[in-house]
């Protein structure tokens, strides 16, 4: 095996892990296609990707927060807030679409900047900073929208982002794929990617090697918030709605996807492709349960169990002690 793939946090083990994940995905698909004959239809798979795209887009940027050893719990609220702000700019301030969306994005980036600065410069743990941000961004979303469930009526171009199709596939899927690929390149092949991994692996060591841990981290949160904003815009256009409690709890779905994908919450390693597989896996499970018309009560149960199994399989299967074959005592000669 060539060494070239193993640089920067790789290692042969991780490479194997990545393949393993892929096999788990195939396994899951096989199971689902047996359970529900409709599952493997092209149309259904495209529908699943469509329903996964919000989470997928969020994952592409979110992943940098765990890689640098932090976490960004505010992304769910940011998605909702982005939709509300975009709507205010387009339909209340009556800005043209493009500037309005750009301005929304700028706002998202600023939120990330605040998260990043507070964690790095003021040394507040990221879990707390972003949990607080999750809370106050939700508050701001409620405040701005006056708590309303807003139905977005226009502009036409905006609405077609979410439901429009290109070559038979919904546009959000393209957005997701592009962002995932960009993020993959960013992580694996750029200086920033290397720095993010280094900061997550050992901040002091990274610092002594000339990496500025603070600016690396800040950038990680900016990217995370930025992609959440994009996800929010896509979601608003997809559902033609802006509502503060929308996407509440999505941060947990994103974390789940990313962790299934082999990213360590302790920092220093991560895989964007893995995160996408993780997101698709969760999407498949939900879709499969829907196709089977499984009662709603069983969804969280099944999802939770499948997640645990996937994690255990992905990590390299360890048999519990009581299941292991009993070994004879030392070396046989005792």
């Amino acid at each position, binding site marked *: 095996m060539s060494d070239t793939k193993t640089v920067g946090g790789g290692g042969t083990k991780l490479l194997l892990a990545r393949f393993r994940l892929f096999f788990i995905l195939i396994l899951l698909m096989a199971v689902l296609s047996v359970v529900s004959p409709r599952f493997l239809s092209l149309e259904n798979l495209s529908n699943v990707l469509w329903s996964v795209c919000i989470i997928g887009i969020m994952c592409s940027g979110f992943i940098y927060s765990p890689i640098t050893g932090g976490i960004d719990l505010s992304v769910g609220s940011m998605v909702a807030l982005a939709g509300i702000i975009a709507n205010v700019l387009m339909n209340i301030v009556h800005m043209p679409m493009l500037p309005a969306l750009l301005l929304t994005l700028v706002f998202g980036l600023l939120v990330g900047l605040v998260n990043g600065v*507070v964690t790095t410069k003021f040394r507040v*743990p990221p879990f*707390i900073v972003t*949990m607080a941000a999750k809370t106050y961004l939700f508050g701001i979303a409620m405040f701005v929208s006056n708590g309303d469930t807003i139905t977005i009526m226009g502009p036409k171009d905006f609405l077609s982002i979410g439901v429009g199709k290109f070559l038979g596939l919904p546009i959000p899927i393209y957005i997701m794929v592009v962002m995932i690929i960009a993020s993959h390149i960013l992580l694996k092949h750029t200086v920033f990617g290397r720095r993010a991994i280094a900061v997550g692996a050992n901040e002091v060591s990274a610092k002594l090697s000339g990496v500025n841990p603070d600016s690396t981290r800040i950038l990680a949160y900016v990217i995370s918030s930025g992609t959440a904003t994009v996800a929010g815009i896509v979601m608003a256009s997809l559902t033609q709605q802006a509502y503060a409690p929308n996407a509440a709890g999505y941060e947990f779905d994103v974390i789940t996807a990313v962790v299934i994908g082999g990213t360590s919450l302790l920092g220093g390693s991560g895989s964007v492709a893995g995160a996408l597989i993780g997101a698709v896996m969760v999407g498949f499970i939900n879709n499969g349960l829907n196709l089977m018309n499984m009662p709603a009560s069983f969804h969280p*149960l099944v999802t939770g169990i499948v997640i645990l199994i996937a994690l255990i399989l992905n*990590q390299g299967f360890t048999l519990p002690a009581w299941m292991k074959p009993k070994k004879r005592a030392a070396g046989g000669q005792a």
Partner: protein
Amino acid sequence: MPIATLRRMILIGLLLAIGAVLSFLNPSFLKLDNLMTLLQEASQTGIVAIGFTLVLITAGIDMSIGAVIAVTAMVCVNFLSYTPIPAFLFIPLSLLTGCLVGLFNGYFITHFKLPEFIVTLASRGILAGIALIIAVKDSDGFVSNVYIQDPVYLSFGGTVGPVYIVTIVFIVLAFLTQFFLKRTRAGTNIYATGANPAAARLSGINTDRSIYGVYMFSGFCASLAAIFISARMMTAMPEFGLGSEMDVIASVVIGGTPFTGGVGDIWGTVIGTLFLALIKNGILKLGISPYVQPIAIGGIIVVVVMFDVWYKAFAEGIAKRSAYRRKQSGEAAAAVAAEADAVAGGDGKGERS
């Protein structure tokens, strides 16, 4: 120690100040009824927060507490609806629910070495599902929330004098847990497990046992809170407690237990819980837009922790500098003497400063 104490004093001071402002702005704040319901609210969160503090001390996290509340409530309702078992018998049994969940969490965390966050998140999902599945159904198969009328069960929502029982239980539990942490070997082991698990293991501590212990205790506390919540509301819903994780985490963190493990105690958590409950009550009392509440709570958490970090650095700086000065003047002389002895035939003169 003084660092933590002073921080606590400041927080208590702040608590009193906010209380004073509130009672000035809204006379109904100081009414006994209001204070007691405030304490009741705080105690419900607080009981869960006590368990959560132990988890945080081991540098873990427990996202399943909300779902444990839901499942425990459902277990109780099942006992009430389908069995003749009296409340004083099935309540202890239902407290086992949380312990079992803790066992489950502990198993996956210690055996498979999966991250605590993701394990407890997964069990949160699983439990939320179980809560729905075991929820009491009407004849058409739809979930229906039982109206509890069992007097023994409902007495848990009652008061002794003006004080709610939940508050008394909270205070007693806080005392016991604090004593356990500081005065038993198991307590010390929990701190060691959080501060440096590798070193703890090398010192002969069974860190897995500590981890099992804290998650089971955390589950137990959540189950306990579930009894009080459902007794107060005279019903149990399968979505009880879901989402309350954030309040619990906020209380513990405001109380001064960090995420890094190895540090923290129960009194901090008690104060943190009171603080959060006071803020919530205050916002309601002042008739501020309800949407300001999340903004304010989020803001306060950041400010408190920011202050914490700044203050810790500040106090440590002072301590270090004074230690350095002491060292420069006093201990240096001793070191000189020692080194002079070690160096055979030293002919120089010892320096005194």
